[in-house]
């Protein structure tokens, strides 16, 4: 349903810059919580109306194959699954060269193939939502909570999804506008020496502000550990043993609650400043896309505890003034105190390069950019060749002079040079691996589909 402006009746949208609800038509602004009571009442009325009509989002339909347009047409007309009629008898074609009957293409499948309960059959589940602005029937997926009408473009909140079924406890509203997100990305790309010119002047294919569902975990973690570490290096190194026993209370440890969004991508969006977290209100969703969770806490508990354990270990290792730290023995004790459901903001920006879609993300609160950009191969190769040539000539001259009169110190110096070379190779390979991983994440088809499969 649309959130109407009390002044002029046009649709209201949440404005990240002012943090208020803003009317595009009359430019009036309202505090989000001001409209909450009216919106809740209207929402409840509409929910009752939809249930009476029995064409609301509570009736999901399974259909065999077909595009979304066909699904919408059939869904509007029928409310129960339909088996198509067919004629199992073959149609004889006397003009055929074969002496066996020719089957009409449309009748080639048997009754069993159209069994709608068959798990192997391709089906598409869609929910139909009626736009309260233009009356259009809009198909939405199982998790969308806020979207735009494909026909009139009005921002619309799927009231029953967030009012009763899966209501979040908290939300961090968008504080970064769409224009600011685009500007931040362009500035960053323009600074990149190895970013191809085509990408610096990219044309945006799609920009979406999406509220991502997260589970927030409060976890108590206690451990007593014996650790071993090395102090010093070479001949002056010693092995030390350490004992650490500590308590830790994790608050609002974030875990992505969406199956469609890659976990690595959502982790890189962190950290969100939870001091800006607010009590959830439907008004914040207007003007943005939002998804409800489709991963339950029972599926994430193990991952949450694993994250807590890794973070705890990181903190303990920081109290040990040594390197090569190993845990020899530990005795962990932990408890999940509570879990809460929240929505956090992110901008998704898609562009194409060499016919491959890339999706950059911007944290909708902190402006942190996530992604990996393809590089200009010619520039990279030229830079590498020039620097390698200069350093090679320099090192060759030094080594040639040193090798004229080799002694023990000279050989040590040469071994140090070689050691630096091997270390540089290792660091370089590690850097290249990280860049390639970031690029792979940015061009992931699941992230592109997460953005693409939405109304407007």
């Amino acid at each position, binding site marked *: 349903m649309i959130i109407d402006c009390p002044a002029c009746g046009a649709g209201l949208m949440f404005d990240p810059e002012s943090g208020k609800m803003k009317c595009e038509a009359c430019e009036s602004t309202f505090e989000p919580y001001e409209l909450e009571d009216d919106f809740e009442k209207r929402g409840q009325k509409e929910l009752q109306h939809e249930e009476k009509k029995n064409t609301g989002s509570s009736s999901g339909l399974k259909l065999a194959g077909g595009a979304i347009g066909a699904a919408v047409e059939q869904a509007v007309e029928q409310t129960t699954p339909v088996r198509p009629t067919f004629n199992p008898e073959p149609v004889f074609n006397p003009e055929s060269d074969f002496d066996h009957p020719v089957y009409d293409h449309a009748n080639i499948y048997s009754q069993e193939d159209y069994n709608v309960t068959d798990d192997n059959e391709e089906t598409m589940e869609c929910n139909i939502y009626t736009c309260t602005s233009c009356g259009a029937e809009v198909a939405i997926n199982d998790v969308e909570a806020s979207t735009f009408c494909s026909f009139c473009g009005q921002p619309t909140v799927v009231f029953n999804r967030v009012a009763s079924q899966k209501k979040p406890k908290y939300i961090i509203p968008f504080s970064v506008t769409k224009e600011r997100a685009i500007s931040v990305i362009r500035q960053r790309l323009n600074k990149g020496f190895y970013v191809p010119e085509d990408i610096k002047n990219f044309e945006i294919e799609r920009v979406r502000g999406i509220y991502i569902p997260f589970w927030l975990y409060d976890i108590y973690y206690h451990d007593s550990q014996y650790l071993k570490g090395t102090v010093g290096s070479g001949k002056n190194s010693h092995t030390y*043993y350490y004992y650490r026993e500590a308590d830790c209370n994790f*608050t609002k440890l974030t875990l992505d609650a969406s199956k469609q969004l890659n976990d690595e991508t959502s982790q890189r969006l962190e950290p969100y400043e939870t001091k800006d977290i607010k009590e959830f209100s439907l008004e914040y969703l207007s003007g943005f896309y939002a998804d409800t969770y489709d991963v339950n806490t029972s599926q994430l508990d193990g991952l949450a505890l694993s994250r807590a354990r890794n973070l705890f270990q990181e903190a303990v290792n920081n109290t040990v003034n040594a390197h090569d730290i190993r845990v020899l023995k530990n005795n962990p004790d932990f408890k999940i105190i509570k879990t809460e459901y929240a929505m956090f903001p992110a901008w998704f920006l898609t562009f194409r390069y060499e016919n491959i879609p890339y999706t950059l993300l911007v944290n909708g609160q902190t402006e942190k950019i996530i992604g990996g950009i393809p590089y200009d191969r010619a520039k990279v190769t030229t830079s590498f060749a020039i620097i390698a040539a200069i350093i090679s000539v320099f090192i060759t001259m030094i080594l040639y002079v040193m090798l004229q009169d080799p002694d023990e110190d000279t050989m040590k110096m040469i071994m140090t040079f070689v050691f*630096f070379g091997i270390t540089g190779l290792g660091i370089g390979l590690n850097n290249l691996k990280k860049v390639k991983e970031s690029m792979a994440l940015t061009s992931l088809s699941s992230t592109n589909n997460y953005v693409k499969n939405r109304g407007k």
Partner: protein
Amino acid sequence: MFIKALLSGIFIGCSVSFCIITNKLSESNEYGNYSGGFRSYAELDTIIEEESIIPFSLFRRQARKKQP
């Protein structure tokens, strides 16, 4: 002698150049590494800290005696 110096020089030059270029590439083209570290979520309440250079078995025996 010259060949040895040349080959070593080329190896070291290419390795160092590779390290420098990939470092610049990472700064230029890679955005937003994971940074949600421990401090984002909690403070560590350390109860006991012990450290020693003595062998592990002795250390463990001593630590056990000190535990409440």
